[in-house]
């Protein structure tokens, strides 16, 4: 019997204070796409870090094609043909495509110190054509789009004669067309008998690509199943250890009178003539392809970017929003797309982040902050939103994605905002935490808040919105009620159909 490509048995790994992996088994066949799923903190990335030599396991064995191997350094993994494409790419932005592909293995000429650029460029062109990537080898990587960078990483993995390619959340920053391209490439890899380990939170997407799926929970191995014959519901149950009920809690909030009216919002060359009304207690989903201008619309509304035209009315009266502080004063809050980059202050702790926008409310004349009140109010929000943190003084960079998102939400609530703009609220967050966010959104709208929810996940749009605004190339393609909306009808308008 031909042994599996990879067999990891009885893997244990501990860090101070936490057992990250407890007797985990994992196997991979040649030419298979094997998905690895689990909530944040379940141990997926730890397992992969062991496989790629970033960490050393405490106990367990790893067998490659039937033979036991030792992986102690990243270079060992590379020699064994194990390649990983991280969510945050491992590329050098200032270096060219060609330089990136060949880093640490540049073709040499004359002595072993001088690089043979010409040969390198030639070999680069060959490699790029293998992944159907049409790029100039001399382009600097920071001029490439996210999708192109990802393709480059894949090309690099292939060129390293990878037998095993690990992909960590590969589709989170791609458009649908780019995702199709990626899947096509994955099929080609499968045909070449490359084994692929695919880590993703997007369970529905796995249906198109995965053969088997392994679930981890709290560092333990829960099970490995064939994708055929398993429903998403089953997988979720394995991931969280309990029935999750419906993904999306029922919308019971009543939609009230108009709260915010946007008329003709325009920003030259970016968004054109956007008009809509947001009601009290409503969730307005904003759908559209990447680049349709959704985030740009939100930023213009919030005053983060200067608008070139349009009026904004709050409860019937025209208001001027020229900067975020104006928007905040009118009770509008914005949870950004990339919370690590422009949402959280990672170096500060939980209570500092929660009270960041409302510090003035805790400051007496003369600038003295009321620490007691800050702690008390932060504690209230931590309880209210069920933010999992060891203490208020924990630095937010150590929290999981879902809890980080809750901290930002707490910040806006603490400031007393009534209108919340959520931009990709559950990106990079596991299923259990997603549901908690949805429940919170429901509760807030039940209390009279209004929410604009920008999302690229159609199930999320369909599951949570009361009405859906679809954008296409910077303009409004249509607004529909949830009752009459389907994935197809939304996509139709999002891609420019009339």
């Amino acid at each position, binding site marked *: 019997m031909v042994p599996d490509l990879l067999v990891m048995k009885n893997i244990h790994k501990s860090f101070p204070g936490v057992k990250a992996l407890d007797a985990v088994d994992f196997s991979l066949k040649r030419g298979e796409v094997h998905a690895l799923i689990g909530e944040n903190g379940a141990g997926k990335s730890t397992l992969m870090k062991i496989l790629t030599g970033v960490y050393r396991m405490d106990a367990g064995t790893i067998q490659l094609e039937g033979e036991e191997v030792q992986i102690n350094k990243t270079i060992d993994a590379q020699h064994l043909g194990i390649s990983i494409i991280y969510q945050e790419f491992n590329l050098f*932005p*200032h*270096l060219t495509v060609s330089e990136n592909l060949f*880093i640490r293995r*540049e073709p040499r000429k004359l002595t072993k110190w*001088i690089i043979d*650029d010409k040969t390198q460029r030639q070999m680069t062109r060959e490699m790029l054509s293998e992944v159907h990537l049409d790029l100039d080898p001399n382009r600097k990587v920071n*001029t490439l*789009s996210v999708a192109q960078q990802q393709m480059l990483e894949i090309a690099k993995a292939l060129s390293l004669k990878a037998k095993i390619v690990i992909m960590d959340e590969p589709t989170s920053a791609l458009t649908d067309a780019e995702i199709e391209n990626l899947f096509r490439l994955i099929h080609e890899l499968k045909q070449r008998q490359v084994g692929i380990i695919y880590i993703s939170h997007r369970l529905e997407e796995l249906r198109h690509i995965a053969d088997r799926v392994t679930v981890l929970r709290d560092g333990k191995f829960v099970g490995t199943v064939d994708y055929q014959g398993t429903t998403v519901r089953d997988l979720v149950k394995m991931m969280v250890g309990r029935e999750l009920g419906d993904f999306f809690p029922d919308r019971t909030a009543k939609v009230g009178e108009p709260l915010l009216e946007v008329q003709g919002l325009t920003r030259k060359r970016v968004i054109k003539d956007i008009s809509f009304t947001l009601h009290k207690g409503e969730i307005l989903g904003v759908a559209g392809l990447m680049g349709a201008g959704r985030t740009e619309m939100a930023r213009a509304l919030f005053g983060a970017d200067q608008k070139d035209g349009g009026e904004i009315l709050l409860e019937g009266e025209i208001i001027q929003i020229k900067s975020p502080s104006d928007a905040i004063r009118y009770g509008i809050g914005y949870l950004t797309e990339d919370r690590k980059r422009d949402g959280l202050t990672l170096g500060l702790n939980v209570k500092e982040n929660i009270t960041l926008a409302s510090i003035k409310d805790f400051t007496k004349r003369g600038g003295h902050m009321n620490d007691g009140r800050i702690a008390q109010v932060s504690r209230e929000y931590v309880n209210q939103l069920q933010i999992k943190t060891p203490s208020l003084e924990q630095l937010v960079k150590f929290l999981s994605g879902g809890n980080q998102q809750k901290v930002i939400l707490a910040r806006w609530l603490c400031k007393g905002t009534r209108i919340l703009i959520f931009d990709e609220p559950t990106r990079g967050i596991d299923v259990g935490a997603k549901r908690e966010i949805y429940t919170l959104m429901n509760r807030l709208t039940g209390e009279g808040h209004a929410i604009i929810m920008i999302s690229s996940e159609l199930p999320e749009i369909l599951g949570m919105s009361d009405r859906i605004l679809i954008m296409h190339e910077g303009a409004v393609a249509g607004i529909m009620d949830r009752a009459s909306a389907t994935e197809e009808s939304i996509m139709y308008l999002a891609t420019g159909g009339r």
Partner: protein
Amino acid sequence: MIILFSILSPYFFNFDNLITVIKQTAVIGIIAIGVTFVIITGGIDLSLGSVVAVSGVVAGYTLASGAPNIVGVLVGTLIGLLCGVLSGFLVAYGELPAFIATLGMMMSARGMSLVLTQGRPVYLAGNKTFNLIHNYNLFKVIPLPVIYLVVIAIVAHYILKRTAIGRYVFATGSNEDAARLSGINVQMVKLVVYSVSGLMSGLSGILLVARLNSAQPAIGSGYELDAIAAAVIGGTSLSGGEGQIIGTIIGALIMSTMKNGLNLMHVSQFWQQVIIGIVVIMAVYIDIKRRKTQRP
């Protein structure tokens, strides 16, 4: 700018003056080339001027005590290299922030040169040939310092652009984590760049001793800022990953042309500082704006 100064002062555009400008450029230029390597990795070296001084002082003593010229040159170079290696060690293996490590080196090296000389210059009284290192003109026209600068620049450029180690210098500056994960010995790379910087400062120190025919313990004060400014004006990004030797040379040229021109216009030293500061800010501002438009 050359045109501007030519108009503003009758003394600018004559041959002797231009030669002087180029000679000035050589000193700062050599140091700036060294620090370019460091900045590309995302680091910084504040000790440049002090290393110039201490290398010069030790070389000066060696020569004053009768040693042959070649030994003086060797000793000065070695001292510069040693300082660089030490800084490099602290940053690469001691994991000290570059700013702090080189600040410490800056102070200690300066202190060392004062200790060794008790604050007094070392004169190369009996030595008639050492100053030729600086003052000799090849073919009666081309000053040796210029040759040194050009040769060093060509070698440095080649190393950065065509060798593996040069590539790894850029890689370390562009994404240190990725560099490490790609199997690049990042610590070694850092050690190397600081050593280069020290070496260059040492060479410059020797050049200055030759020019002045004496070793001044107080010399080089502020040179680090000039050298860094030259590199930055020339397009080296302080956040790492980008830099060009040719750019650094141009930066050094701009700085010395400015100083020279302003001198000839009888602008006071103090005002010169102000003007130079403004020019540096403007140059970097333009560069940053230019980069912003390039990115998608």
